């Protein structure tokens, strides 16, 4: 048995040229890769801005509400404490 048979077979494989459109496809992929991050960063910025607005609304509401709540409770004759006996 010729022990180099498999290797000789592999050496007989001819080298071929890559198809001419490959470079175009590569450059198109590179161009698309540059565009996507910008869109993504705009989306992230909008999401962060929305989060800040929601936070501001919630925090602003809490700061105003705490003192007024006691007045409402008193006006309605309710007990703000959970103690049964005063």
């Amino acid at each position: 048995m010729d022990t180099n048979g498999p290797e000789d077979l592999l050496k007989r494989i001819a080298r071929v040229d890559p198809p001419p459109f490959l470079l175009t496809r590569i450059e198109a992929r590179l161009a698309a890769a540059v565009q996507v991050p910008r869109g993504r960063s705009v989306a992230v910025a909008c999401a962060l801005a929305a989060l800040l607005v929601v936070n501001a609304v919630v925090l602003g509401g809490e700061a105003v509400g705490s003192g007024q709540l006691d007045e409402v409770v008193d006006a309605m004759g309710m007990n703000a404490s959970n103690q049964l006996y005063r």
Partner: protein
Amino acid sequence: MPPQDEFRALYHQHARMVYNLCLNYLHGREDAQEATQDVFVKVHERFTGFKGDASVSTWIYRVTINTCLDRLKARKRKKRSLLGWFSLSDEQVERSASLVFDHPGVSAEDREALERLFAAVDELPEQQKTALLLKTTEDLSMNAIAEVMGLSTKAVESLLSRARANLRQRMPNEG
């Protein structure tokens, strides 16, 4: 990132090598074309990070080999999941894989023998397969193979020796 002219020059200098190595790992035109694109996209992305501790050709060889090996692993995972979903036997899956052997560098008279040989080469451990392909299809010297694989020449010789022994075991009737 390299300027466009520089990148195009890099492409024209190495595309043939990359494409042919991808064909020898993946055995199909479509897969090799996609892998070649992946390689050059990575080269473009990582070019500024390339430290120059090896030649550009050596570095591109490494990117190509790693890209092809990743594709082969993904292919094997897909095969295993097909086995599970459709209860196909190993033989049925292997037969379906061989239907996509589409290597333009293989002559009609060698096709059948090379299909069998590549099936055996695909079963080799990754390093043995890489050493064998770089020696036979790329005709690299032992020193060049050692540089690409980051090994000593003795380690490369050992890998080649084991690859040959494994192939003889898997293909006892092939001359």
